[in-house]
């Protein structure tokens, strides 16, 4: 099937199998490998990207469902004049990543979360990121990073 998807601000048109998952489309067809696959039960959020600005688990979206929509991945976050987008910069400043595997998903979930709740409390951050697993950080610095990003916005 042919899909027309805007990926990181670039319109694309690709022929895909109906069963192709969005995460595999991004990784294999678009060569964007920041989003990772960490589970097979829509539990971990390692695959999180933005679909029309809202965070989704791209392992649970078929590519054809994204037809006519726009997708943003960690590669496509715009830092403006800076090297890093404010959320990415906050993750670095607060050491919100270790092995990095959960990180692109965590960052995209944060971008989506803060767009809905720009001034969250710590508890709201924890609830907002409940669907994103991290084995390395114990979430402590991830929560700091999200609060830091909210403050600096």
């Amino acid at each position, binding site marked *: 099937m042919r899909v027309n998807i805007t990926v990181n601000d670039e319109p694309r048109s690709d022929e895909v199998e109906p069963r192709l998952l969005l995460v595999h489309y991004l990784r294999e067809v678009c060569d964007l490998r920041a989003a990772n696959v960490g589970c097979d039960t829509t539990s971990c959020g390692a695959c999180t990207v933005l679909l029309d600005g809202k965070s989704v688990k791209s392992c649970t979206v078929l590519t054809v469902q994204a037809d006519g929509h726009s997708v943003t991945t*960690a590669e496509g976050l715009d830092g403006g004049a800076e090297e890093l987008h404010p959320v*990415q910069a906050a993750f670095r400043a607060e050491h919100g990543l270790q092995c990095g595997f959960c990180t692109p998903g965590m960052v995209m979930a944060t971008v989506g979360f803060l767009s809905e709740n720009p001034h969250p409390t710590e508890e709201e951050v924890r609830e907002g990121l409940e669907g994103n697993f991290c084995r*390395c950080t114990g*979430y402590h610095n991830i929560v700091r990073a999200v609060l830091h990003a909210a403050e600096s916005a």
Partner: protein
Amino acid sequence: MSILGTRVLRTEDPRFLTIGGNYTEDLVDERLTGAVHVFFVRSPVAHARIVGIDPSGALAAPGVVAVYTAADLADLPDVPPILPTMNQAMKRPPLARDVVRYVGDPVAIVVTEEAYQGEDAVELVDVDYDALAAVVDIDESLAGETLLFPEAGTNVAIEYGSEADLDSKLFDGCEVVVKHRIVNQRIAPAPMESRGAAAVWGDDGRLTAWIPNQGAQGTKGAMVGMLGIGAADVRVITPDVGGGFGAKFGADLEHVATAWVARKLNRPARWNETRYENLLGMTHARAQIQTVTVGGTRDGRMEAYRLEILQDCGGYPKIGGLLPSLTILMTPGTYAFDRAESIAKAIVTNTTPVGAYRGAGRPEATAAVERAVDLFAAEIGMDPAQVRRRNLLPPFTEPHQTKFGAVYDTGDYEAALDRVLEAADYEQLRAEQAKRRANGDPIALGIGLSSYVEVTGGGAESGEPHENALVEVHPDGSVTILTGTSPHGQGHETAWAMLASDVLGIPMDKITLKWGDTDLIPRGGGTGGSRSLQQGGSAVQKASRELVDVARTRAAEELEANPDDLQFDVATSAFAVAGVPGTSVSLAQLAEHERLFVETDFFQPGATFPFGAHVAVVDVDTETGKVVLRRVIAVDDAGVILNPLLADGQRHGGIAQGAAQAFLEEFVYDADGNPMTASFADYPFPSATEMPSFELVDMQTPTTYNPLGAKGIGEAGTIGSTPAVQNAVVDALSHLGVRHIDLPTSPQRVWKAIQAARSENA
């Protein structure tokens, strides 16, 4: 001012945050063009004879290149248990040959052109099983009615001492003796990146294998052994690794099978493990049943302690069989028992094999003794903090040798306990607890303590703990460091650059760290056992210093001066002649005509012993049994801290994993050996909502074993937090008469304990 000891942001972060790490599944490499995809048919039953395997359905499916079974892999040797002292009949074939021994045991390999084709085709391999009785329970295994390896004659893989060695008089004279059987449950390491491999054989007959691992050299050694080929014929490359936690050391049969397929088909091959496979196929952890006995005086002196361990190895004895030796090593923990002893038996069951996981054997020791202390305190009706204070080893700066062979290098356990109690405001917490109890509050407050000492950096390849480093300055002023350690989240790119920059005066952004390529770095012990900074970091600092010495000789020639008259100025990374302004030569300039590098080994006189104390605060809902972790306050003294950002990150992650073992995680089998928690939908993996922010208290007691004064920090948090949280849950219910709740303190277990205590009181 030196940057050592300061909070330095990670240089590796921008890459991970923007394009993401380059993990094995992400690899784009022309050598892997046209790779086939490897899938494993895994046993759906815990224990069965394989009657027949019919691959025809799969072979007829689209894109299937081949199906292989154990018979095809006959050229690969069986893998013996990891220690020669283990029962050698418990060998593992490269694929299950006649018998499957756990759900998830690989039975056949399916190779396809496309990844999606394999997912379907594995379902089409028809394996006929003849069920055998499954042995799931440790006691059942010990009874030996069903043997996993009949030719072994027993289910016991190895024993460390035996009942006959126990001192029948150990508790003689004790006014109080408490004994309890406690479970240190099976959990899954579950790094966010599963396992995987990519393999290709060159025209020269050499294998190049990309494998997520914790030490390429050890992984290569394992591959060489399992493939039965020469060491010169294997190159292992470590891509970015999405977490290891001890479970990615060495190589597994799936890695070997991927390499085997690539050779057989003369095509590159790739394997990416699914989470379902990972939860069944990657080694599990902990899985001990312990019996603790502690005896002492009514006024709080603990005189004697005994620890008896039953270790579940799972279906094949791997590192699991070795773990009890580490538990035994750390038996007495931080306490000055007059007498202590421990023994262990490691047995096989029809479950996933057990291996190393953050702490590996030491968390089990701490959990046992810390539970024993609380049981003792409850029995004599004394505050657990007071009992600990009364019995801790006094501070020491000369090594303290235990009867279990551990040599604690430096320690001040009382100070750690005092600090954590003060930071937690222990008195105030007890007052709040009393108030809630007086008010009949259904939400009980629990306060749990732990005091721990652990062993880090004990293991390298062999012999004395050591690690190597190569530091080279290039003519453009950049630096390359090669290390035998293997970061997978720990931040070595930053930390090792700090160490080199501090000595060489070259900015960190000009320093590149390389690791994980056995052609480039043939020797190395990898990253695990919290060894990296103390040995690998010390090696980097040593090499950097030696490089300045080498450069000094060159600079003396260049400047026609006596080497002793030269001063090395770190600010400019250059030598100048003392008192002669205007003459100087930089390290970069000295590298122009001849390579300027030093390769060196750093040897440490022994393992180091970080220590600390934790306080956990929990709310326990006495009506539902639900535990909410409110606070963890932690003193983790790992000697001198190089970069508090990294050290705190290790502590946070460690504390969370330890706490999650205490009240959330458990890998569960039913009585027939069917896994009940083989997905992230079922396995209680902790999320951000279940963890509090952690309160870290600083304490740094240097070791003299390395010039950095550093001990290991990777596992400390895990070791301290499990018993603190478990003790907190029991403490919350102590007024009801609850003395013990097994791990994890799930709502069901907590609720049952409350009911049992109430009916006993009634």
